[in-house]
Structure formats: C-alpha cells, structure tokens
C-alpha cells in the first residue's frame, strides 16, 4: 500500500479535489454503457444480417423455436430486478433490501437461462438464428454473472458500512468520504444494471418475438 498508518510522516501533500473520484465513477459507468452497447450491437447486426441474406436457406434449419414462456420469465425477472434496484438506490434506507431482492431475481434469471439450454429442441449449428440465439444469450448470461458480482460488492459494502456505523474515518488513499463513494458506486451499479436489463428485454423481443 502507498502508506501505512503507523509509519512516521515526512511530507505533507495536498489531497486531490473532493469530488474527482465521484465524478469519475459517474462518467465511467456511462462510457462503459457505450462500450457494452457496441458489443451487443454486434449480435444485433449479426441477427439482421444473417436473417436478411438467409444463406443457403438456412436461417432456421428445422424447428428452431425457443420457449417464449421461459424467455418471457427471464426478461420479466431482469426488468423487475432493475426497477427494484434502481428505486432502492434512490432511497438509502431501502437500498440494502431492494438490492438483495434485485440480486436474487437477477440470479434466478440467469439460472433460468441455463435451464433453457437444457430444454431447447435445437442445437447451435441449426442455422443462423440458432447461432445468434446461443451466442447472444450465452454472452449475455456470462456477463450477467459479472453484473451479479458487481451488485454483490455494493451490497456487501453497504452491509459492512452499516455494521460499522457508517462513520468510519477517511482512510489513506481514498480521496473522498467512504459514504459518498459508496453511494456513487451503488448509483453507478444500479444505473448499469438498468441498462443491462434493458438489453435483456430487447434481446427477448428480437430473439423470441420478431
């Protein structure tokens, strides 16, 4: 670590302006959404490109229809999870409970996605649609696990901070108060999760309904 509390002090340095790290978190999550959008745009492009050229009349080979019920359940859980977390993030007293509920719903949605793979009546090689379906949903689910990790860290931070009374002193290397940074992190996480759930709902519309 840069400095230890017990080491003798030699030189004073001015702390960086308050708010820099908060602003960085705010900006970062929005730019990150830009990155993620371009990533999923690739699958959207693949969907319409392969569908439009219908190479070798193989957009769908045989009966290639995933269960709309399961897809709807996944999309609904994602949407509900995002709404609950976002609303909870806006009210500090409800954040922990809402976050836990959102985490559970998101977890169930991802588990359902993997359950769906065991129920499908087609394989990944059965045409362009099947390829896009597997590719898009699988990467979405895997990155969704990453989102679950992010939500968990926010909830764990909140839980630990509450246990310690929310009044820990500012520590070395942290340029703003823990609490403000924690709130910024929760806000960023819930904002991204709302975006990610929206991508999930759009993917449901594209892959199951269009």
């Amino acid at each position, binding site marked *: 670590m840069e400095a230890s509390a017990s080491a003798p*002090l030699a030189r004073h340095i001015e702390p960086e302006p308050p708010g820099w790290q908060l602003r960085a978190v705010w900006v970062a999550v929005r730019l990150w959404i830009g990155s993620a959008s371009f990533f999923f745009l690739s699958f959207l492009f693949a969907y319409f490109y392969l569908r439009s050229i219908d190479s070798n009349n193989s957009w769908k080979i045989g009966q290639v229809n995933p269960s709309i019920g399961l897809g709807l359940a996944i999309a609904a859980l994602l949407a509900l999870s995002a709404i609950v977390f976002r609303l909870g993030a806006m009210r500090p007293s409800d954040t922990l409970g809402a976050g836990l509920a959102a985490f559970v719903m998101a977890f169930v949605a991802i588990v359902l996605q993997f359950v769906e793979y065991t129920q499908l009546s087609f394989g990944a090689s059965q045409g362009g649609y099947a390829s896009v379906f597997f590719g898009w949903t699988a990467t979405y689910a895997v990155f969704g696990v990453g989102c679950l990790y992010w939500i968990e860290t926010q909830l764990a931070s909140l839980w630990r901070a509450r246990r310690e009374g929310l009044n820990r002193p500012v520590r070395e290397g942290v340029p703003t108060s823990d609490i403000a940074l924690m709130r910024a992190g929760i806000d960023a996480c819930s904002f991204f999760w709302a975006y990610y759930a929206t991508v999930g709902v759009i993917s449901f519309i594209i892959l199951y309904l269009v």
Partner: protein
Amino acid sequence: MSTIAVPVARPPLWRRLVGFNLLAGIALGIIGYVIGQWIGGRFTGVNIAYYSKTAGQNDIAIMLGYFFGVVGFLIGMGFANYPIQRMLGYPPTLAEHEAEEEGVGRYFRLCTDHKVVAIQYLVGIGVFFFIGGLNAMLIRTELLQPNTHVFGANQYLTLVGMHGTMMMGMMTSGILGPFANWVVPPMIGARRMAFPRIESFTFWLLMAAGVVLITTIFFGGFQTGWTGYQPLGDQNTAGYDAYIGFFALVGVSMTLLGLNLAVTIISMRAPGMTWTRLPIFVWSVLATAALMFLAAPMLIAALLMGAMDRTIQTAFYVAGQGGSSYLFQNLFWVFGHPEVYIVALPGFGIVLELLPVFARKPLWGYRLAVSGMLGVGLLSFFVWQHHLFVSGINADLRPFYMLSTELISLPTGFTFLCFMGTLWRGRIRFTVPMLFCLAWAFNFLFGGISGVFLSDVPSDVTTHGSFFSMAHFHYTIMGGLVFTFFAAIYYWVPKMTGFNLSERLGKVHFWTMFLAFNSTFAPLFALGFMGMPRRVVTYNPSFQALNDWASVSAFILGISMLIFLYNVVWSLLIKREPAEANPWHSKSPEWQLATPVPVYDFERTPVFDPDPYPYGVEPVPVGRPVVAPAGGQA
C-alpha cells in the same frame, strides 16, 4: 492533509520474491493452462494420458487452456485480491505497491503508480515490437527469391500473420500505454489515473495476450494474416485459437485502457484546465480513447463468434449452415478501420505537442487541430466498407463509402495545416525528437495520398490486396505511428527515467531508420502496381530485383533498431548521465516536475494559466504556475 511515509527498510530479496508478482503469475498461469486443457479434454472425452496426440487439435481444450492460463496468471499477479476484498465489503482503495522502497520489484507486479505502469508498457511493448520486427526480417528473407527457399508456405503465412497481428495488436497501445499513462495525469493536473488498478490490469493482460499469440507456433500457426478472415479462420488448424485469444485479450485491454483514459481526462482536470486549454496531446488521447472503447468491443464480439464456431459448433461464419463469412468481414472492419486511427491519432498528437517546443512558437490552429482529430475519429466509423469493395458488396453502397473515405482526408489535412503553420517562421531546433516529427510529415503524406487511391473504387479494384496497399499502410502506420513513437521516446524518456539518451546515437538511428524505411517501402508501391499480391510466398521472377532491394533495405531498417537498442542500453544502463529537469525548455506541465519524479508527482494541485503553448510570447499575468519552471526560456 494527506501524508506519505518516509522510507523504511526493505525486506530481504527472497521475501520479496515470494508473493503476488510475475513469478507467481507465470507459475499459476502454467498451472491454469494445464487445468484448462484437462477440463477441455474431459468435455470432449479425451483422456489426459493421451494429450500429446490429441491436444493440438482440440479447440475446446486449447481455448479453455488459454482462459484458465490467463486467469491463473492474473491471480498470481495479485489481481484477484482486491475483488475478493470488495466481495467481503471492504471499501475501495486506489493505491497498491506504489512505495519507492519496493524498488524495481514494482515493475514486476501489480503497481498502481501511473509512472511505473507507463514504463512497464514501454518495455513490454518494446519486447513484442522487436519480436514483430524480427518476423518482418524473416519475411523479407524469404522474399529474397521468387520461390520458397527458407520456409514453407504455411510457415511463411504464419510469419506474416504473426507479424501483422502482433504489430497491430500491440502497437494500438504503443503510444497510449507508455506515454498517455505517464504524461496525461500531470498534463491535466492529476496525480493518477481514475482507476489505477485497471491501468495496471490493461498492461498485464496485454503481456498475457502476447504470450498467447506466440504459442500459435505449437499448434500449426494461422494462415489468415492479421485480418483473420473467414472462412479461412474456421478452417484453420488450432493455431487460429491463439489468434482469437490474442486479439480478444487485446480488445479487452484496449477497451479498458480507453475507458480509463477518457474518464481521467473528463473528470480529473485541475482548476484552470478547461477544454480549450487542454494540451493537444491530451485531445488526441481523448479522441483515440473514444475509438478504443467503442470499436474494440465489436472486435471482441466478432472473435467470440469465431470461438463459438470452433467450439460449440455455432455457424456464424459457415455459409452452408446459415452463416456468412462476410459477417466477419463487416464486424472486423467496423473495428478495423477505427483501429487504423487508433494507431494514427496519438501520432498526430505527439507531433503537434512537440512542434511548439522545438519551433519555439505557439501551436498554430489549436481549434483546427482539435476539430481535425475529432473529425477523423467520428468519420472513421463510416468508412469500413471500403475494405469490402472487391468482396462482392452491393455496388450501390460503393459510392457512399468511397466518398466518406475520401472525406476523411479533410480533417487529416487540418493536422498538416497546423503542422506547417506552426513551423512557419519558427526558430526550429533539429533535435532527435524534432527530426522524427518532421519525418512523420513526409511519411504520412505518402501514406495519406496513396490511401486516396485505395478509397477510390476504380483504382482500388486494381490495387486491393496487392503490395501497393501493403506499402500504403506501412507508410501510414510505421511512418505515422512508429516514427512518432520514437519521437516520444527521445522526448519524454529523460523525464521518465531521469537519464539522457545519446543525441548522437539518436541521430544515427534516425537517419538510418528514415532512409531505410523509405527504401524498403517505396519500391513496394511499384511492385503493387506491377501486380504483386500480398501474402504469397512465391512470385513472378521479374519482381525479384525490387524485392531484393526492399529486403536489403529492410535489413538495414532492422540494423537501425539495433542502433536504438544500443543507445538505450548504453545511455540508460551503462552511462546513466542524469537528465536536466527540463532539457527541451518545454512549457508543458510534466516538464515542470522534479527529476526524478516523486511518487506523488506534485505536492499541491496545480492551477493552470490559460495558454497551453506560451512560446515566444510574454507570460500572461493570470493564474499562477504549477511550480517554478525547472528551466527554460521562451
């Protein structure tokens, strides 16, 4: 007030070698690779005892091997510790292993000091740059004769692929990794990057990617060139898995590096550092960063689709099963053309940043230069289909992409205007960095003009896929990026390391490199017009004289790199002449720091004057300087 600790006694060497560092990273990386291979073998029903016979053709095992190997490496480097702490609810921290008492050990582990990461980048990328250059020497050796005489066709194509992939993959971070990481924080008045662990992560991920690419030689290589086109990719041996792994990791590294830089520039500028005061190099970094974090995810997605085709049997790129190889071409070039500007834009920034210093004049056309770089960045997303002119795209699409590609020469021209305007009536000093900047203008002009031929449909139809296009992009990328890369090395390394590079050896290096570079690649324009295609190991005997000329020139170009290497070893490791704090008499903030630069960069958050390039003019009596200038005159 924050505080820093005084130096404390370092633990003995053996204790410093134990822990999360490069040694542990390599060990866990190897273990991870074996575990991944084993799991992959179990998936596909291959017995571990028979690996030697089957592993080379088992894509799932190889992919999982790479994945677990990289994860193991990162765990060994210490990148899992902080995420686990965060899972347990511990609050965020920003600094790790920054203390100077850790000595050179900082350079072999996760370190969050932006200056350490920058030097890690410089050395790490330098190593792969030399490996890529060595591949080029081997390619030119093979082309000394019109028939195969050193390598077979597959080996030759693998060399071509490795050279192109390594150069394009590694050198995307060639300027941003070392120089943006080092220079941007002090230039904007920050002490660090917004997310220092991510900064370190991008570097070590890039190094892991480089190793993954090299392993392709154990699995038959890949014969696709750096573009990895389908269906050749899907049909390739398992060596193509290394290509996928490499570029996907590079894509992740690029995305995170771009995000980190953009966030830092947007949200961590000191008081007075307004958008219109931002150094031009920082603008170029911002434009490049935006391209990186927007374009690279499409590359990652395209490669993931390729990986899924090869492992779980999807058919994204298999025409007979509903896929299309053109899908890959489209996705690749949506990334690939911005990639060209990811490589070029930092070069623009370096040239325009250095010219005022060595012409002793303010930058001419600051806003024009900014709009030019942003214009190039924006337009680069609308030109990708010119790479598909001869791939059978709808003919009605061609005029749009032809015009959009030709349009991009306008904002590029802005940079040249600013270049000439700044030199005009300047008191020019022909230092080594300045020579490299001047060479950039010469080289990039040829690269740019030849690019117009390739953007134009009728001429592209005859030159596409020929040595002409190869000469074009070497003039833009090597002539544009690599020359400015060396300008940046000669300019900033005295501040980064605290030691001078030899000016005399630098000039020998420059002239050898400049002459050999042009002697190597100018004949390739002619060869292209005469009809010599790229990526073929045999050619018409009538082309031999020009090929031999290019090969001999390329060897001299290689020798120029050895001169540079000698300069580095002699100046930085043997002679070690301490550098002045501001040998170029620059007015830029990073040169006002002490040499060697302390961990915390500066004690007080700086406040900036309104003019970023106050050369040759009276100081403006507004604001206050960061610290007393370390040297210099207007």
